[in-house]
């Protein structure tokens, strides 16, 4: 069966990805920040799921998981770990330390994961990297206007995804960014349009169809193209 490695898997979309791929029989490697936090891990108990302590801002942790999985092909890498600070992201109120933390998680974390796992993804049959971005990262400002740290870090994530698509093409790897829609998670709250199940279910159906022709694109959860 194919295998998937998911960052930020202890809650929200990450947890939902882990569950759905496990139910489909995939081998799932779930990266979670704190393995001792039992409430988070409990939800990931499944024969197909292995949890790894993986904080994407800790590059030594990334390297140690990559070493642990050195011989294991990864069909699909999902860079999902992310966060948002809410109103403290607005004009004149941005906390600069937290702004840099968003860059560390969304941007550096994604790049460091790709650098560390590129050989395993190359060894996989599917050769897919999916970066969970956001409509808030679109420079057309279709949503989320005014959240400087979140919007800038997601726009930067979109840029590096386009570059990774070019750099990893020779290896046969497809790199795609998704906006998951406005999903009811801890991050966005209960007033959202979609449940995590609906959003992830739709993205998994699209991921199933992805190949080299889609590399370097920015897609809505339902597969529609999103402007940069």
């Amino acid at each position: 069966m194919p295998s998937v490695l998911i960052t930020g898997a202890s809650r929200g979309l990450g947890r939902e990805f882990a569950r759905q791929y496990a139910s489909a029989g995939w081998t799932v490697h779930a990266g979670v920040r704190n393995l001792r936090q039992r409430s988070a891990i409990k939800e990931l108990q499944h024969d197909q799921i292995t949890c790894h302590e993986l904080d994407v801002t800790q590059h030594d942790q990334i390297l140690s998981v990559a070493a642990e999985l050195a011989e294991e092909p990864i069909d699909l890498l999902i860079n999902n770990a992310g966060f948002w600070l809410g109103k403290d992201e607005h004009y004149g109120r941005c906390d600069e330390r937290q702004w840099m933390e968003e860059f560390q998680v969304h941007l550096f974390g994604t790049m460091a994961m790709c650098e560390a796992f590129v050989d395993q993804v190359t060894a996989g049959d599917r050769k897919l990297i999916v970066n969970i971005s956001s409509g808030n990262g679109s420079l057309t400002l279709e949503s989320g206007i005014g959240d400087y740290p979140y919007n800038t870090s997601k726009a930067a994530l979109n840029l590096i995804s386009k570059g990774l698509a070019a750099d990893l093409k020779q290896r046969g790897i497809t790199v795609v960014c998704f906006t998951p829609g406005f999903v009811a998670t801890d991050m966005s709250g209960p007033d959202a349009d979609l449940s995590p199940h609906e959003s992830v279910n739709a993205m998994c159906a699209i991921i199933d169809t992805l190949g080299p022709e889609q590399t370097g694109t920015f897609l809505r959860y339902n597969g529609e193209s999103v402007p940069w």
Partner: protein
Amino acid sequence: MTNKRPSVVITGANRGIGLALVSQYLADGWQVYGGCRQPELATQLAGLASNSALSIHQLDVSNPDSIKKLALALSEQSIDLLINNAGINGGERQSFGDIDYAQWTRVLEVNTLGPYRVSTALANQVENSEQRLMVNVSSAMGSIEQYTTGGHYIYRSSKAALNMVTVNLAHDLRSRGITVLSVHPGWVRTDMGGASADISTQTSAAGLRQLISNATLEDSGRFFSWDGSVLPW
């Protein structure tokens, strides 16, 4: 109408495009406030200071305290135009498999957060001026649409993120009548662009001044090349 001369703040004023902008705005009769990290080393900028319309300020856009000092020094001035020009390239290690993450942090501090900090610190002075313009010197290298090669991740991502700062500032400052643009200065013969680039700093600065003088609130939040054409995100 008063016949007060218009005023411009230019960051990174000691060399390259910043220095060319300083000389041209001075020649055009503007009051120029030039910011640079080490004024004592900025000999070319100091050479222009025989013109009493130039005032030189120590400014490190990665240091919030330094920006506060500038805002305080200019608290009674109106500023028609702020040009966030200060920027750094990020060095050699920007390729896949060899990324210098400490440099990446530094480049985002200067190229992305720097313009946000200076813009928010000087927004009142810009609002109190006649022209009410802010210009972020970005780069076509920050265009995601035009990025098809890979590599140069640090510099490119900092400029895509700067473009996102531009569109957000344009939105947030529209009600105060402030126009905010991202501009691509061209491939310019500077320390950063190298000797074989397309155009001189003077040609770039002249093009930028022209497009800035034509800009209206309608243009706010857009991305222009130095020749006035619109660039894709």
